[in-house]
């Protein structure tokens, strides 16, 4: 069994059996998507946005990070033969485990649920919210996932700042 570990801001797409995608989650959310016909799946790991000084995150800010993370995963899967209409999801994470961050975990979880509803993607399983960190493992080829609670706090990496367009200064066409 080969293992592919991802961290915040990353995703992995697998179309081979015996390959496990894994991640550790705190307030972040991981969406495990799979296409049972194309026999491929992928997982992402995202935090919607950084809370401001008031520990709140604006909806627009949150949405654009989350939407981008989901789009990268879905487009990557479609490029390898998945069909959007066949996708199914397992959702994990969104715990409110870090004091001082308010309900960012709940916001992440709500975004994930809303996204799947808006896109018409069936959520076959979800384990969201709560106060525990989670370890998630996903056999993408089979569309099987499992989640275990982690007793200790997950040392989540600080949010990866979304880079400014790489084109600025390099490819200024207009």
């Amino acid at each position, binding site marked *: 069994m080969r293992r592919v570990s991802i961290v915040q801001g990353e995703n992995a797409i697998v179309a081979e059996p015996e390959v496990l995608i894994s991640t550790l989650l705190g307030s972040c959310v991981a969406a495990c998507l799979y296409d049972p016909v194309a026999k491929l799946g992928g997982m992402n790991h995202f935090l919607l946005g950084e809370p401001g000084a008031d520990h709140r995150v604006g909806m627009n800010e949150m949405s*654009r*990070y989350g*939407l981008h993370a989901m*789009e990268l995963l879905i487009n990557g899967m479609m490029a390898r033969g998945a069909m*959007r209409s066949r996708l199914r999801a397992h959702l994990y994470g969104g715990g409110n485990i870090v004091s001082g961050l308010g309900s960012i975990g709940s916001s992440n979880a709500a975004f994930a649920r809303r996204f799947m509803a*808006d896109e018409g993607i069936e959520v076959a399983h979800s384990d969201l919210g709560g106060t525990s960190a989670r370890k998630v493992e996903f056999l993408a080829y089979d569309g099987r996932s499992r989640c275990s609670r982690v007793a200790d706090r997950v040392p989540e990496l600080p949010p990866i700042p979304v880079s400014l*367009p790489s084109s600025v200064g390099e490819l200024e066409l207009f």
Partner: protein
Amino acid sequence: MPAAAAIKVMVVDDQTSMRAMIRRALQDLGFKDVRDKPGAIEALESIKSDRVHLVISDFNMPDMDGLQFLEAVRKDPVIGKTVFIMLTGSADKEIVQKAAALGVNNYVVKPFAPAALKEKIERVFGELT
């Protein structure tokens, strides 16, 4: 200065949530006539029969991608001069170059803030009121 409310916009993206976010951003900027389609083929048919001033289109779409869509718009004798802004992923420099060769008016790299979208639109239309 053009009034945003007078500019008709077509938003094209295969992701429902992304279309909704762009619609909200445009409406916040004062645009009143914002239509959207999940695919370039439907969008092309729509803007041929009911013209718009501005197309904002994703690149990565099934059936007809953003470059094919742009090319089809530019080749059309009626809608060929419609302003076309492409949405791309951050690693799509080659696509931006191809889009520039095909006559794209501007591009926006995802994920983008509403202010970035406004800036790119204003570079084409001038400052919006």
